[in-house]
């Protein structure tokens, strides 16, 4: 599809432009924070913006906005795509919504990766959502100084313009500035468009059009090739008619009949190729025609470098469409239906559906979506599917069980559970065929799961399994998946891994590799719960080997899963390598419900390296991305954070967490074991705690058993308990779960002189504070980097932390070394031998 690629290119003019140095020189050297080009349609905003950009030695991140970009998530992902064309080093920044954490990350990253850059947002007036304005406002306030924002818009945006103006950070080009002066009009009419007009005629046209660029260009087209120029100018100047109407009629009249018909026919298309024009007009020579139009300057805008895709200038297209709609509504409908067919034949359902709808054929639109459904679901094109379903009239959706079921799914993804149920009821009322019934039950199971209704989940999933045929692998896979997840949530791990393993096999048979790999991520998590990091590692490695080839929407999640296991093994460099790979693959390789995991694993790596503050910060970022309801929350982020707080001695924060826990019956084993650690840290490990720990050990859920034995060993300071944990955990691949406990654990391990497991663990680096001057090992690492030539942002990037965190580190280092500058810190550290 040409859509995204063409959005990221500033239009490249094929003809000579009238130089407008009087405008572009105004802020050529002194570039403000915001360049605002604000004027009505047809004033040449985009052109002057591209002219200004050519005066700048700056990278350009260009984004032509359309109505869809009012969706904040889509806006941000397009903005990041545009920025990545300008600064290739930029990582992918995305989230379920552009949260402050995501934007801070983006700005910090730009601080480091971007050279002098202009972010140019064209057609900003199409944005009508406060969320997107908030994002842009944030950027205006926080972009690094070398990055400038430029907006072209038909209406002043609701941004803090007055504040920027007062600070001298705003440069504006408005309609009055953009109006062509008589001299510029002369250059456009005579030199560029090749009309021979006397100065008096130029002045008259400039006055009548009020220097409006589109009007002047139309006037040139209308005047071209006439011998009665004086009469033409006088008649136009003496008319009251709207400039656009008067001139467009003149221009169309002066064209041969077939050109005129071609323009009216193809104006229904937002973007077009010669082939598409052929299909819509019934002609066979559209390529020649487009060449003619381009040479005649008839408002054709090329959209790609290969000269395949075009569009008309918006103003011109609107005027043509208004004429067509008023004069020949039947013809308009027929043209739209022809466009729908062409797009459908070329597999471009997203474009076909709106044309079918505008062509008055909602039934066809619905059929197109039904046909596209399996592919869209298999490839997880969730956003597109949602857009298409929302475009269909509700009564048409209601007539189709498949569409109603799919619409129910879109409600599920925004958490509207009542909406899901209503649409599933609708689907039930029109369904025929067990395959569709099975699918409805699958979604009912989803709702039950989201409502935390475990028995309901299992019941619907079982019904789906009964209804699904032996070859209906998708429903079978999904239903087995729910049963597996329900067993996991119930703590029945043996059933969970077997059933969920069947789900993975069904998805494999369904040819749904993306979901198969996605389910493998979950299955790996189950094996971790079972206390088998080794088995999880085997699964991840096998799946990654299978995922070779195109990057899938779950490839990154597999890397993150593997990184987590490697971290547990203590192979921290390898873990970081996989995290880096996942980051480079970007959001396209990660499902939304998994995005938080990257930060959790990074937190674990940082904790293992002894940087507890950064580990805590990573957990905050994980929390911002966490989407509840997808998987049993067996390792809640707040509990992880409490564990870090306990480790860094912030017991008040951990107590705060403990107070906020509600009903003890709702607590996971992980929560209980976190509370247990808090009790040990507060020296109040009592019989109740020991009884609870014994209960967890007896329940026999592998991962928790190892964890409970560790807490018991710490509570009783008992090497024997530890010995048991080691025998169970180390062969299964555990290491960090022991070592992250720090000095009390190393002391216990040291006492187990006969244990080869203990000796093996003690050979690994243990998280502990550096002895010298009370600097942590992370701070020493920062100090070493401060001694290099690297800039602050470069150091932050190397350490995978934000500039803010780096600032905190340096502040601590300065305090501990009793200095207040970087060179002084390096000097002092050298004296103390810390950099040796």
């Amino acid at each position, binding site marked *: 599809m040409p859509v995204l690629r063409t959005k990221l290119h500033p239009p490249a003019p094929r003809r000579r432009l009238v130089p407008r140095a009087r405008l572009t020189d105004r802020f050529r050297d002194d570039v403000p924070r915001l360049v605002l080009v604000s004027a*009505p*349609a*047809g004033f040449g905003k985009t052109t002057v913006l591209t002219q200004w950009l050519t005066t700048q030695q700056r990278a350009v991140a260009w984004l032509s906005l359309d109505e869809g970009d009012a969706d904040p998530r889509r806006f941000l992902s397009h903005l990041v795509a545009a920025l990545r064309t300008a600064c290739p080093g930029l990582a992918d920044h995305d989230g379920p919504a552009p949260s402050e954490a995501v934007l801070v990350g983006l700005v910090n990253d730009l601080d480091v990766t971007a050279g002098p850059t202009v972010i140019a947002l064209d057609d900003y*007036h199409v944005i009508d959502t406060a969320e997107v304005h908030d994002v842009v406002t944030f950027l205006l306030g926080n972009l690094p100084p070398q990055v400038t924002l430029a907006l072209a818009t*038909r*209406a002043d945006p609701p941004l803090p313009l007055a504040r920027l103006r007062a600070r001298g950070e705003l440069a504006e080009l408005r309609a009055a500035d953009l109006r062509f002066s008589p001299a510029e009009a002369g250059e456009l009419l005579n030199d560029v468009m090749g009309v021979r007009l006397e100065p008096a005629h130029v002045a008259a046209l400039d006055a009548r059009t009020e220097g*409006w660029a*589109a009007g002047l260009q139309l006037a040139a087209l209308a005047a071209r090739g006439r011998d009665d120029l004086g009469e033409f100018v006088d008649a136009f100047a003496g*008319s*009251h*008619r*709207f*400039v*656009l*109407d008067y001139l467009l*009629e003149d221009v169309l009249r002066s064209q041969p009949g077939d050109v005129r018909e071609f323009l009216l026919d193809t104006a229904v298309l937002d973007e077009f190729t010669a082939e598409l024009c052929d299909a819509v007009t019934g002609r066979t020579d559209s390529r020649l025609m487009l060449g003619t139009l381009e040479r005649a300057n008839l408002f054709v805008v090329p959209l790609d470098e290969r000269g395949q895709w075009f569009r008309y200038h*918006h*103003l011109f297209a*609107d*005027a043509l*469409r*208004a*004429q067509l*709609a*008023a*004069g020949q509504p039947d013809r308009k409908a027929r043209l739209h239906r022809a466009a729908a067919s062409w797009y459908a034949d070329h597999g471009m359902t997203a474009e076909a559906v709106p044309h079918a709808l505008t062509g008055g054929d909602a039934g066809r639109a619905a059929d197109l979506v039904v046909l596209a459904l399996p592919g869209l679901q298999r490839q997880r094109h969730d956003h597109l599917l949602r857009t298409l379903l929302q475009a269909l009239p509700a009564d048409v959706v209601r007539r189709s069980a498949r569409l109603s079921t799919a619409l129910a799914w879109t409600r599920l993804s925004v958490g509207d559970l009542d909406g899901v149920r209503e649409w599933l009821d609708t689907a039930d009322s029109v369904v025929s065929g067990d395959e569709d019934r099975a699918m409805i039950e699958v979604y009912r199971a989803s709702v039950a799961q989201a409502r935390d209704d475990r028995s309901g989940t299992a019941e619907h999933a079982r019904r789906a399994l009964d209804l699904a045929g032996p070859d209906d692998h998708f429903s079978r896979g999904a239903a087995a998946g729910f049963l597996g997840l329900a067993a996991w949530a119930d703590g029945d791990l043996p059933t969970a891994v077997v059933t969920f393993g069947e789900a993975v096999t069904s998805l494999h048979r369904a040819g749904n590799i993306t979901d198969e790999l996605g389910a493998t991520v979950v299955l790996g998590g189950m094996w971790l719960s079972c206390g088998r990091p080794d088995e999880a590692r085997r699964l991840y490695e096998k799946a990654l080997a299978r995922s070779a080839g195109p990057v899938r929407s779950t490839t990154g999640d597999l890397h993150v899963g593997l990184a987590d296991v490697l971290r547990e093994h203590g192979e921290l460099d390898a873990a970081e390598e996989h995290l880096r790979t996942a980051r480079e693959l970007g959001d396209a390789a990660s499902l939304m419900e998994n995005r938080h995991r990257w930060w959790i694993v990074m937190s674990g790596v940082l904790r293992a390296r002894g940087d507890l503050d950064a580990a805590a910060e990573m957990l905050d970022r994980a929390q911002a991305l966490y989407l509840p309801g997808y998987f049993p929350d067996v390792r809640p982020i707040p509990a992880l954070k409490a564990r870090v707080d306990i480790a860094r001695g912030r017991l008040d924060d951990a107590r705060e967490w403990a107070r906020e826990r509600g009903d003890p019956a709702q607590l996971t084993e992980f929560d209980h074991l976190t509370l247990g650690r808090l009790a040990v840290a507060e020296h109040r490990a009592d019989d109740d705690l020991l009884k609870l720990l014994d209960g967890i050990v007896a329940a026999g859920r592998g991962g928790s058993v190892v964890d409970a034995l560790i807490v018991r060993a710490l509570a009783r300071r008992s090497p024997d308990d530890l010995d048991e944990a080691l025998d169970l955990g180390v062969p299964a691949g555990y290491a960090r779960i022991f070592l992250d406990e720090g000095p009390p654990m190393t002391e216990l391990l040291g006492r187990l002189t006969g244990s080869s497991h203990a000796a093996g663990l003690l050979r690994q680096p243990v998280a502990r504070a550096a002895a010298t001057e009370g600097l942590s090992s992370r701070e020493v690492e920062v100090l070493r980097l401060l001694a290099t030539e690297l800039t602050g942002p470069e150091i932050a990037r190397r350490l995978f932390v934000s500039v803010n965190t780096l600032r905190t580190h340096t502040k601590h280092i300065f305090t501990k070394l009793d200095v207040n500058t970087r060179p002084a810190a390096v000097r002092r550290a050298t004296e103390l031998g810390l950099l040796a």
Partner: protein
Amino acid sequence: MKTTYAIRVAGHLDDHWSGWLGGLALVRNSDGTTTLTAAVTDQAQLHGILAGLRDVGATLLELHSVDQGSGGQGRSKRS
């Protein structure tokens, strides 16, 4: 309850814009302006019409409500 607005723009607009802008009554005045009359259900619809005029480059001269009914509050807003 619909509210009716009169919108005056510069120049004489052709009839085909009436349908394009959602079926407005369109009167060309002798002073070279055009008055469009729109019955809208809410402000969002009014803003949609204004955006449509903006997008074809029409110059807005005046906007006021022409409702006869109750109350005089905010009956007329001239620019």
